[in-house]
């Protein structure tokens, strides 16, 4: 035991040296780090003196002046900024430029900061934004990191309901100093939704069920989901009234609920409904028999979520179901 320890310690000296070197490197870097963050803060404070405090899902964030360069890490934030007439400087677009063009309604000039799931912090920091808007679920683990880059507000997007989404819209408007515009825009939004509702004139006895269809699952969106709630505002009764926003179901369960209208947001590729379509149970669904099954765009219906997109969903409904006079 003693013998090997002797030779071992000589030969292990190299390793220990290496560790010592690394620790030394770490030591000098952390002091450097402190100096850096001071620098960053110092730069921010030289701007105008008007500071506002925004309360959001993860606390309070102070924002100085009016942010010009905004980074949006979820699609609904892009929609909100768009509704306020602001073009985001950086978007977590999952590298799908065409999806953003569809959301904003035109090609815009922005920098992709990677995926929504793992936005690239290096790119975000190199953009030197004035404001970052992050999702409460996806980005809570990097909130501190984002806060070091720029003032960050965290809002519900992915798990938000329609009402929460409108709340987030107001918070974003506050953060970018456009409360007045937001008020007008929201009033306009309510009017548009009311008008669409009047045109659709849904029968109160008719039930509707939006669902996301994947290769192995059929996920119904209930009255508490974003699109379910929006449809209720448009006058449609959801076939599943419950607190949980989503419900996984199989064909038998679907038959039991038997909605009058089915809205299917299909995934790319193979779908579980491909198989169901050959099943007599499927053919007996009211919606199928009456030709009330509609394929809808998954981006618009379940991913975008925002003031503009909600109006687009309303328009989409009018297009599919037609005006009811």
């Amino acid at each position, binding site marked *: *035991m003693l013998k*090997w*320890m002797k030779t*071992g310690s000589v*030969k*292990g000296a*190299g*390793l220990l040296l*290496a*560790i010592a070197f*690394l620790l030394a*490197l*770490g030591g*000098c*870097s*952390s*002091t*450097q*780090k402190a*100096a*850096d963050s001071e*620098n*960053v803060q110092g730069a921010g404070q030289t701007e105008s003196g008007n500071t506002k405090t925004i309360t959001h899902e993860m606390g309070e964030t102070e924002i100085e002046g009016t942010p010009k360069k905004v980074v949006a890490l979820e699609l609904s934030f892009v929609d909100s900024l768009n509704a306020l007439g602001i073009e985001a400087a950086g978007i977590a677009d999952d*590298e799908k430029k065409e999806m953003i063009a569809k959301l904003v309604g035109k090609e815009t000039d922005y920098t*992709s*900061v*990677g*995926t929504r*799931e*793992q936005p*690239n*912090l*290096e*790119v975000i*920091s*190199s953009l030197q934004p004035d404001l970052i808007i992050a999702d*409460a*679920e*996806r980005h*809570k*683990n*990097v*909130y*501190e*990191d984002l806060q*070091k*880059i720029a003032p960050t507000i965290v809002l519900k997007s992915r*798990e938000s309901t329609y009402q929460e989404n409108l709340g987030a819209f107001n918070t974003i408007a506050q953060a970018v100093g456009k409360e007045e515009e937001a008020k007008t825009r929201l009033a306009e939004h309510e009017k548009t939704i009311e008008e669409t509702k009047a045109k659709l004139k849904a029968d109160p006895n008719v039930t509707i069920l939006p669902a996301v269809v*994947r290769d*192995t*699952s059929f*996920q119904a969106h209930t009255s508490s989901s974003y699109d379910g709630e929006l449809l209720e505002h448009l006058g449609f009764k959801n076939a599943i009234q419950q607190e949980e926003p*989503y419900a*996984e179901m199989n064909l038998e369960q679907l038959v039991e609920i038997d909605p009058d209208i089915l809205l299917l947001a299909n995934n790319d590729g193979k779908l579980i409904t491909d198989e169901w379509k050959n099943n007599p149970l499927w053919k007996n669904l009211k919606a199928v028999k009456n030709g009330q099954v509609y394929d809808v765009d998954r981006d618009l219906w379940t991913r975008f979520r925002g003031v503009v997109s909600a109006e687009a969903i309303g328009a989409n409904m009018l297009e599919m179901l037609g005006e009811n006079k």
Partner: protein
Amino acid sequence: MRITEQTTLNKKRRPLVLLFILTLLLLLLSAVSLGVGAVYISPLDIITDLMGTGASSHAFIIQEYRLPRLYIAMIAGAGLATAGAVLQGILRNPLASPDVIGVTKGAGLAAVIVIVLFPDSPVFWLPVSAFLGAAAAAAALMLFAHKNGVKPATLALIGIALGAIFQAGIEYFMIKFPDDVNSTLLWLAGSLWGRGWEQVWMLLPSVPFAIALWLLSAKLDILNLGDDLAIGLGQKTKQLRYVLLTLSVIIIGMCVAAIGSIGFIGLIAPHVARKLTGSRHKFLLPVSALIGALFLLAADSLGRGLFPPIEIPAGIVTAVIGAPYFLYLLRREGKKA
């Protein structure tokens, strides 16, 4: 499946030289890694940033992201590789790894439960639950193996069984909650994205445990001779296995808590190390550690640099490189036998 001393002793290289070369390689790769990513940083900028003179515009990226990730990759890579080498020694099975004894799966199940069922939980719940999951898996493993005197084969079999149970649990949650599959898979694959100094401090306490394992390497050598001989030489094999297992699990738990249940490092690094230096643990462990650090650092740099701004999780890169390399190793070993 016993690791035979003969074949490996013949081609033993000078361990000191080997350690020196590997350290040099690691430093070289570190320098490259600091430059690689969505934003390219030139070597000159890196040096001035590290010295703290004339902070360039990239100083923030280096200090906040690349440097901590460099350290995390080194410590976690080295930790997982060391623990893997020790597990292969305890189980006297070259296929042993943190995955095989069910520990990473236990951590995975705990993490998945937090991600899926408690999405609003505070940030620190995830690493804590992962560590506790790993600890619980290890406790179950030792409890079930205790009756049979903690024999290597028993440990391996029970570990695999526990792993299968945890895996079933993970899959249940993934099927039940398809919306969270992305974030779950991401964590399960293991990634250094979004990790910073906090995780470096979280990982540092694992270093003394790795050194403790290294100090026990003579005992590991004796265990490798087989239980009969080891007992004959006065070793309390059961107790020794408990100590070694506990130390390894603590290291694995910390690594997994920090970066997710990253695979293949604990399996491959010790293999490569054994090829290079033979199976005497006092050399095998440090060489494994260096190779593990190199492996994870290379994986993270590649994942960051291949398709910016999209990052490929380091765990996926280790699997993509690791799996074919492992097959190749097995084939070569089979040929020699």
